[in-house]
């Protein structure tokens, strides 16, 4: 099939060093003495352990449950006994520990009951669910949970499904061997992805330095009657980067700010397709993967390795030369030296390279940047690495972002070509992590600021409310005083004229009513009339606001209400009527 290929700018051509490890077929690595299976082997949520020390497990048994949708389950790679669930050092440049399930194999390698299914009979959600439960993740190195990528965009039609068999990093040949030996299952796996995503086209991209793999894939595609296009792309690092391969095959450029599905493309690694097929059609979760063991060894080769196998045990199979001084996990362009040779093989481990100074000569001392621009010409994302370096070095991180540092995929092309031997990628990682750290700090500070402002606001509001309350109380006090004064005046004018209190305390005013009323003068009489009228209005008002349910009460209820009222007054819960207070004034009359 003839196809119009596109080019991406930049890229480098380091010596591929692939021929060493493709001469021998894939070998099954023997059972290691013990397996250390990290629970966190994919992007996303940290799976929770579902086994504990002493548990017997079977091969393929769930040991870590997916936590959330973007997370994938983890399984026992062989049958045996769980020795411990504990922190162990990880195959990560940080050298940090993480929770692992340590299994001592019983040597039987006994599977759990496997349930093969015909995925075509299942609804798509269940297929995705099964993939998650089987721990299928992107095996190209990013280990993103595969099921999370198998939902097409609702708004953008899915044009192309890209299958990545480019394998552009030097030394690595595990995808090459997988395609050569297991092409049929890879193609069947691609079929699952195709059925879930319904793309218009399926393009399988393979670098043209792997003609055997491409031929095997073509044959398998033909044999299975599929219409997938197997496309040989020019060998140019990093053609196997998802964004570069998408560019080469479709001409589309996915910026850092977008997902490929926004442009109607999705991309999976060939090994991911293979494990997806094994998971669905054989009921086998991901418990092993192909690993290239190469570099400073006698017998470079690809092995089918159980997840959790200690790296030094795996490396021994290839007979490393005695001057080996480290293990690189991944390729020489983007890989890293593992912090400890005991670290386990994980789902992201595609290659182990025995390191020595002959293969990887020590770097010459770093010189100042001469702005030659070689890095900019090599950058596949068309960035200006020397500018980003300049600002990273100066810790002017805002500027690094203006120069799009987050579009950097850390492929290492810039460092590879730099005549001044500046570890550019290292500077960019530093700048990115600093920016993230500052972002976190800023978020924390923003949160604290928000909390503080809210607290201030609340305190101010409470203060205002308190002040308002006080003002009201003061006003009430003043009103009360005024009323008392008036009442006193009234009492002085006409003792006993106060209306009978409608409370149970009424008898208290009985005595004053007996007082003589002879000393009435017309002025006082007028005042008294006014006050009486006011009090009558007040009483009417009080009655108006009284609950309606006190109407038509039975005598017992009325009595009970009166008793309650009496108790309330006795407990000073409500203020007695002003009329009551006229009593002490009586002796003056």
């Amino acid at each position, binding site marked *: 099939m003839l196809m119009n290929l596109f080019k991406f700018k930049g890229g480098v051509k380091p010596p591929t060093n692939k021929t060493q490890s493709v001469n021998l077929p894939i070998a099954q690595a023997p059972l290691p003495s013990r397996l250390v299976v990290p629970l966190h082997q994919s992007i996303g949520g940290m799976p929770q352990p579902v086994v504990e020390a002493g548990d017997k497990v079977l091969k393929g048994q769930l040991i870590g449950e997916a936590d959330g949708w973007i997370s994938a389950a983890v399984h026992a790679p062989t049958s045996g006994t769980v020795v411990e669930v504990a922190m162990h050092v990880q195959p990560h440049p940080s050298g940090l520990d993480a929770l692992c399930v340590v299994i001592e194999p019983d040597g039987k390698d006994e599977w759990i009951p496997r349930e093969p299914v015909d995925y075509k009979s299942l609804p798509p959600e269940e297929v995705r669910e099964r993939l998650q439960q089987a721990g299928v993740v992107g095996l190209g190195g990013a280990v993103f949970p595969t099921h999370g990528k198998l939902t097409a965009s609702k708004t953008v039609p899915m044009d192309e499904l890209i299958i990545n068999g480019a394998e552009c990093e030097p030394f690595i040949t595990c995808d090459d061997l997988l395609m050569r030996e297991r092409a049929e299952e890879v193609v069947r796996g691609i079929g699952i992805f195709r059925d879930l995503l319904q793309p218009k086209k399926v393009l399988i991209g393979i670098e043209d330095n792997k003609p055997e793999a491409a031929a095997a894939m073509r044959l398998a595609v033909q044999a299975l009657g599929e219409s997938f296009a197997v496309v040989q792309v020019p060998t140019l690092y990093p053609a196997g980067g998802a964004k570069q391969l998408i560019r080469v095959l479709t001409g589309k450029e996915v910026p850092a700010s977008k997902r490929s599905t926004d442009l109607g493309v999705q991309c999976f690694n060939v090994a991911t397709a293979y494990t997806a097929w094994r998971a669905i059609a054989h009921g086998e979760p991901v418990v092993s993967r192909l690993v290239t063991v190469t570099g400073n060894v006698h017998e470079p080769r690809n092995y089918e390795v159980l997840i959790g196998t200690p790296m030094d045990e795996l490396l021994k199979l290839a007979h490393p030369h005695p001057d080996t001084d480290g293990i690189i996990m991944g390729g020489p362009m983007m890989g890293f030296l593992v912090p400890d040779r005991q670290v386990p093989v994980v789902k992201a481990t595609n290659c182990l390279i025995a390191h020595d100074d002959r293969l990887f000569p020590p770097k010459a001392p770093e010189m*100042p940047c001469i702005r030659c621009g070689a890095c900019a010409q090599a950058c596949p994302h068309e960035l200006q690495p020397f500018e980003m370096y300049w600002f990273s070095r100066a810790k002017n991180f805002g500027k690094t972002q203006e120069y799009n540092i987050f579009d950097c995929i850390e492929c290492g092309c810039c460092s590879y070509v730099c005549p001044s031997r500046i570890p550019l*990628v290292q500077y960019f990682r530093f700048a990115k992590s600093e920016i993230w750290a500052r972002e976190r700090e800023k978020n924390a500070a923003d949160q604290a600021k928000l909390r503080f402002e809210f607290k201030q606001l609340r305190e101010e509001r409470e203060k205002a409310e308190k002040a308002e309350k006080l003002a009201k109380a003061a006003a009430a006090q003043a009103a009360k005083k005024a009323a008392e004064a008036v009442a006193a005046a009234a009492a002085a004018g006409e003792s006993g004229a106060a209306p009978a209190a409608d409370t149970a305390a009424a008898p208290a005013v009985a005595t004053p009513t007996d007082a003589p009323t002879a000393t009435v003068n017309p002025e006082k009489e007028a005042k008294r009339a006014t006050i009486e009228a006011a009090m009558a209005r007040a009483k009417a008002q009080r009655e108006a606001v009284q609950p309606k349910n006190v109407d038509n009460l039975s005598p017992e209820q009325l009595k009970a209400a009166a008793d309650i009222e009496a108790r309330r007054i006795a407990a000073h819960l409500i203020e007695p009527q002003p009329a009551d207070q006229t009593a002490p004034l009586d002796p003056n009359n």
Partner: protein
Amino acid sequence: MFPPAPFLLKDVSVSQVMIQVCVALIPGIAAYASLVGPAILVQLVIATLAALVAEALMLKVRGKPLALFLTDGSAIVTAWLIALTFPPLAPWWLVVTGTVFAVIVAKHLYGGLGQNPFNPAMVAFAVCIVAFPALMSQWPSVGLQLGLIDQMNIILGWAPRVDTLTGATPLDAMKTALKLGEGSFDVSTLLANQDIYGNFAGRGWEWVAGGYLLGGLWLWHRKLITWHVPLAFVASLSLISGALWLYNPGQFASPLFHLLSGGTMLGAFFIATDPVSGCTTPRGKLIFGAGCGLLAYIIRVFGGYPDGVAFAVLLMNLSAPLIDLLTQPPIFGMKDKS
């Protein structure tokens, strides 16, 4: 602990870059030496020694590793460009002054390798032509045939500087004649003087320019320079000289004359392409090169100096950071955005 990825590195270094620039200068130097004699080789040696001594001194003062930086070759490139742009019979101290000034002031006082905003060799040229205009304008007279000993004696000051030994460059001679002639001379009659001029430009100078062109193309082939700056330089110089030549062929020399005269080829391929002081973006490089060509023409034709390349490059050095800032190319995936 081991260094981080990538573990594979291309076999390149600053020294290799600088050495290749020197190698690329050799065809031009050979043609130059055959034109003016071994004096130029003497000047190259003097300038190189002066540059290395000044470099070593500054590295020591600044506490930088001597061996690493002395062998990077950058001082040698600066020295060679100075020797090739100064008059070949200039007294030794003039070349030394220029070189020392370039290394100490134009390079190290700005922060050393990779930090200089101006091309050090062109700073040296500008300083010396302003400070010593007469000495900087005395070029070997046409047809002067002196042996190595005689030339060394002149350079080292052991023999008297006789006026008859020196004259103007063909480029300068043409300008002076046209200016003084007030229209009584025209270009074609001047060019007919086969003592001074060859087929297109100064006799013998055409070959020197050809040598630089050859070396420059090799640099481009080796991907040490991109095509942008030289092409823009040559194109803009050709355009402006061509336009004026078409307007009045009697008073303005042809584009070919300008391309093969003075420092055009050396400037376009070796000086304006200096990455440290020039532009770095593709569009920026085009603007930078075009600006150099245009300014060089204006200064050499209408200005008071024998040639305009040095000042043109320095003026464009001044503008380079701004040009870079305004010409940042769109990155992968962001090209649709306007």
